[in-house]
């Protein structure tokens, strides 16, 4: 028996290592580039007026996007108020009550399909069922569209997080005489608490950058979002409009808004990662 030479394995090892390091570096470099551009262009647009002021016409100096910041906050909040409870309850059904049931398999399948539906289609859908019958764009419609995006994500993370809770913990609660609902609410939720919160925060981070669904629903507005019944100002559609405009001060504002969203998503991600780490500890 002749010994295989060692050098081809060493070579293959080195090649694979080099390729994976290169790929990782490329991805990171792109991210760093995006962050650098957004930071450089956005940070210069950012000042106190930008956060507290109202939009100004093209050409005029100063002005801010306070209306869009508040509008994005309100529409995202509405999306959470609608989407998180329904998504969580669906996840509870899948994890706690659906084992081995056909309905659960169907719901799980639909949740996965819904996660994959492009957000622009969700926007068109809500346009057809809310905006057209109402006859006008509205913040309500925007919230509904975003809630449809957040719902399946929350349902799936809830199911995943509850599935991580070991069965003996459920059994211990039931064996003390606790009914099923109390076991789920007081013990299983408690055990999965930080994981559930992480899931919701990541889902919020995901929808806070969505533009397409808002384009068909909340649209945009230069005014303060006094109510959600009309077109509602928001950061993402503002970026879309301003960036396409020929006016330098609007283009600068678009960079500022991009910077704000990036900062917000980054903050949400960091917080949720910290929570996830606390859970594993």
């Amino acid at each position, binding site marked *: 028996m002749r010994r295989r030479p060692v050098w081809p394995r060493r070579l293959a090892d080195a090649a694979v290592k080099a390729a994976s390091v290169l790929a990782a570096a490329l991805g990171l470099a792109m991210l760093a580039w995006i962050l650098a551009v957004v930071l450089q262009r956005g940070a210069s647009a950012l000042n106190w007026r930008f956060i507290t002021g109202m939009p100004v016409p093209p050409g005029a100096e100063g002005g801010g996007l306070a209306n869009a910041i508040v509008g994005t906050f309100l529409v995202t909040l509405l999306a959470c108020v609608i989407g998180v409870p329904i998504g969580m309850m669906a996840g509870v059904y899948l994890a706690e009550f659906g084992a081995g049931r056909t309905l659960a398999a169907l719901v799980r399948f639909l949740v996965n399909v819904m996660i994959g539906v492009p957000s622009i289609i969700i926007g068109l859908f809500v346009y057809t069922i809310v905006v057209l019958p109402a006859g006008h764009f509205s913040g309500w419609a925007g919230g509904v569209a975003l809630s449809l995006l957040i719902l399946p994500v929350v349902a799936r993370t809830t199911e995943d997080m509850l599935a991580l809770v070991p069965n003996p913990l459920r059994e211990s609660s039931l064996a003390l005489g606790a*009914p099923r609902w109390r076991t789920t609410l007081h013990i299983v939720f408690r055990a999965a608490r930080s994981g559930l919160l992480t899931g919701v925060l990541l889902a919020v981070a995901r929808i806070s950058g969505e533009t397409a669904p808002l384009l068909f629903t909340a649209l945009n507005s230069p005014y303060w979002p006094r109510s959600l019944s009309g077109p509602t100002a928001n950061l993402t559609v503002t970026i879309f409009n301003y960036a396409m405009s020929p006016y330098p001060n609007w283009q600068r504002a678009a960079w500022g808004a991009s910077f704000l969203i990036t900062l917000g998503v980054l903050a949400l991600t960091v917080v949720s990662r910290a929570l996830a780490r606390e859970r594993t500890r």
Partner: protein
Amino acid sequence: MNASPKDLTRAVPRVSALDAPSAPPSPAPAKISVRGLNFFYGATQALFDNSIEIPAGSVTAIIGPSGCGKSTHIRVYNRIFQLYREQRATGEVWIDGANVLAPGVDLIELRRRIGMIFQKPTPFPLSVHENLAYGLRMHYKMSRSELDGRIEGALRAAALWDEVRDKLHRPGTALSGGQQQRLCIARAIAVEPEVLLMDEPTSAIDPVATARIEELIAQLRERYTIVIVTHNMQQAARVSDFTAFFLSGRIVEFGATTDLFTNPKQKETENYVTGRFG
């Protein structure tokens, strides 16, 4: 051991209330009376015609090789198996004159009366205090001070009070493994059960902590009927008054622990307790 496992299964005699080979030599009335219990995981039968009379106020050990149905058997008593849709039991389990497998049984009250301790300690992700308050608040209405008193009483009964009296508001999960298991025992006895089911309660715990829990079982036997599943024969011999030997889902022999270990009536029992298999 010459017989193949298949022969062995066939040789196991059926044990029923009528022809129990070794009726409990105790005058104590049966607290739990199992008659013709069968158990199924889906289409697979795990228990075959189990019948046993467990005397009140005693410790009964259930021994047998892995996978013989020991845990499955006691998981019928409080119907905890019903958490899983594919599991089902047929037959009768009479506890204090009521068949717990009959329809219409109040599971909440049944499980208050029959506490259960699991293989791995399962403290709730709550403080020590809340771990005990959970069951107490669920079953009883009481004032704050009465609640605190009952919690202290249960922790004392579980020989844990001195170790946790300063940590009542720390997480129960921060205790050591042995302490966690005693916390689970305290939690179970806080709601004043009559029966305690222990499913290999020391198999995940170090020897010193195991000794403490065995001591605790000896103290608790005066107030509760205890059924303990163990794969440790020395433990069965140390803590129990009666022992049932399970094999392949059947009860091969049941009797006073000393008799079963020193003078087994069945060949399979003798082979197992003398360490020839299992």
